[in-house]
């Protein structure tokens, strides 16, 4: 019987870089929702656990695009406005609802958004600081993803892979004042071309889905490494399934219903002062519970908070019991790796943060043989089991890349291929030359535009046909910006006003090094 189970809990947070200071887009709400409903509640949870002497030891992956939004002043102003509008909407709702259960929800929402404002004030609006602080206190380990969250196997040249990994590594070191130990490859998407660039950036470990290895031959609860020595952890899909499947915890009838939202029920004229949109969009104000997953939204019953909270505590115990049971006859100490999108907890699964907190508390209070551990801690005390050459894979629906490459979105790839090829030619032309400040600024901005084009978010949004227009608009804008800069560099006529304008619009990676895109000899 195994005396202990190591559990690496990875919460992964990413959003596309959306930064429109001059104009409002509904897509900006993704950031505001995730910050207020997931990231701040999880950070508060870490603080509560820490003040009770409990080290959560969880791992958090923050993509560089998300980090860039977290320390952007314009985005902070919009976040504050978003919260104030929520508080105004809640005030107005008190005059509409009658049932005590709805009023109780409004009390919760009111207190919650006040807590968010207090949290933002505490850190002077810089939301990177608490992550950095908790990492320095060894309560969490923070890692990152490739720079703009591309699907690595769909990047068409090695220079792009190098640039994505190197830029992310540099961004992380600059932001967190330490070197990067681990990387969460976007959507766990892997192909072997990335191995050298992980090594080049001294990255010690990364994560893979379980279909990256032959699970008939290899145990997913062990640590492995690549030929070049970099370690990789295998995600345990069954853990995710236990939560997110149709019969998983998430679907409990007592839990809050995600899809029934007053944004789809109240009069549009009533809503638009608070949503700043003429379209129907979710407001986050929800009063109902799942009731029965087969029931339609109008049939849902009112939410009862006490019962739901109690259920989440019971689900946390059940999770730990099942994990303990699963490994009771295991001969050595397993490492169970569970990876989740961070916004699952709080935003998508309202009671999810409470579940997480109970999971961590119950290990100690109920003496479960489970030890939360960060990947770096695990690597310090464990040697990789053996060397394996992983297969191409991702953690997506069917384990590969169909979501980002299909008949709906494949039109973007020829554009991406051609512009990147022309870009690399330009970089190779200038890389060994003395260049003017204007050319340097142009090449830096060009690199930002190329990296932003490579983001997988555009293909995802086009595929799902949700926010497709926005995705095409963004892809097209970055393409046209890059095209204009390449043409001006080829003609030797730099349009410095255009560069200044684009630097304001797409100001990510302020210290970007365009030389990483230069073609190098294979190593």
């Amino acid at each position: 019987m195994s005396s202990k189970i190591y559990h690496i809990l990875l919460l992964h947070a990413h959003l596309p870089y959306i930064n429109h200071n001059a104009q409002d887009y509904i897509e900006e709400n993704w950031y505001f929702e995730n910050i207020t409903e997931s990231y701040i509640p999880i950070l508060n949870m870490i603080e509560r656990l820490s003040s009770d002497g409990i080290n959560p030891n969880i791992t958090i992956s923050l993509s560089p695009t998300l980090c860039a939004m977290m320390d952007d002043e314009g985005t902070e102003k919009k976040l504050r406005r978003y919260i104030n509008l929520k508080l105004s909407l809640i005030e107005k709702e008190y005059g509409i609802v009658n049932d005590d259960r709805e009023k109780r929800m409004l009390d919760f929402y009111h207190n919650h958004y006040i807590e968010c404002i207090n949290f933002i004030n505490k850190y002077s609006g810089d939301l990177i600081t608490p992550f950095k602080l908790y990492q320095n206190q060894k309560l969490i380990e923070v890692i990152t993803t490739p720079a703009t969250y591309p699907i690595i196997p769909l990047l068409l040249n090695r220079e792009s892979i190098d640039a994505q990994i190197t830029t992310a590594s540099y961004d992380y070191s600059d932001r967190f004042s330490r070197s990067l130990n681990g990387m969460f490859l976007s959507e766990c998407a892997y192909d072997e071309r990335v191995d050298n660039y992980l090594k080049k950036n001294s990255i010690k470990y990364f994560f893979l889905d379980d279909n990256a290895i032959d699970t008939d031959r290899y145990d997913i609860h062990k640590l492995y490494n690549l030929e070049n020595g970099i370690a990789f952890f295998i995600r345990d899909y069954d853990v995710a399934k236990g939560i997110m499947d149709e019969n998983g915890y998430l679907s409990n009838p007592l839990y809050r219903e995600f899809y029934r939202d007053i944004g789809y029920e109240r009069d549009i004229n009533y809503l638009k002062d608070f949503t700043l949109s003429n379209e129907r969009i979710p407001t986050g104000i929800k009063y109902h519970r799942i009731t029965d997953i087969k029931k339609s939204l109008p049939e849902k019953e009112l939410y009862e908070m006490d019962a739901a909270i109690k259920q989440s505590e019971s689900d946390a115990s059940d999770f730990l019991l099942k994990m303990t049971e699963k490994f009771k006859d295991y001969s050595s100490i397993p490492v169970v790796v569970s990876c989740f999108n961070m916004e699952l907890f709080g935003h998508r699964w309202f009671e999810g943060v409470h579940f997480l907190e109970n999971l961590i508390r119950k290990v100690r209070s109920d003496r479960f043989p489970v030890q939360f551990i960060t990947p770096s801690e695990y690597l310090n005390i464990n040697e990789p089991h053996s060397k394996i050459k992983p297969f191409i894979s991702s953690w997506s629906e069917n384990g590969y890349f169909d979501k980002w490459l299909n008949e709906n979105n494949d039109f973007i790839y020829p554009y991406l291929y051609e512009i990147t090829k022309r870009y690399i030619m330009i970089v190779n032309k200038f890389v060994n030359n003395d260049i003017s400040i204007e050319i340097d600024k142009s090449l830096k901005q060009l690199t930002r535009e190329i990296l932003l084009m490579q983001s997988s978010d555009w293909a995802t949004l086009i595929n799902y046909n949700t926010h497709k227009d926005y995705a095409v608009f963004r892809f097209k804008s970055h393409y046209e910006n890059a095209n204009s800069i390449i043409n001006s560099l080829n003609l030797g006529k730099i349009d410095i006003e255009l560069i200044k304008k684009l630097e304001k619009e797409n100001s990510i990676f302020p210290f970007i090094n365009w030389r990483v895109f230069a073609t190098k000899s294979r190593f």
Partner: protein
Amino acid sequence: MDMKVTVLSSLDENYCVVMPRNFETVFIFWKFSNYKISQFKNGEYNKNIMIKFFDENRNPVLDISVPYDAAKYYITLPKHTASITASLYLNRNNSYELLSNSNEISLSFEKNLKKEYNYIR
């Protein structure tokens, strides 16, 4: 919004590129230079091109014949290979001329897991 309204870049080259869609399906896209397109239009070449796929040891895996202006294609490989490359051939009077070789991509072993998530944003 139509992406095609944008003027495509001035990369006036012949190329073909392969991408992995999943463990058995490959996406290929190609483009001809303006000069080559004019040759097609003048009837110097057959309007169908031949694309040959090869495994990691350069063994033939599959040949397809497609219209030159189809510009893209998905193929399901008849057998599993560790990697794939493609070569694009033009047909002039039933004689095939190699025009362009693609990049090489890794593929996976046969393990088509069905992982359906109930979680959609």
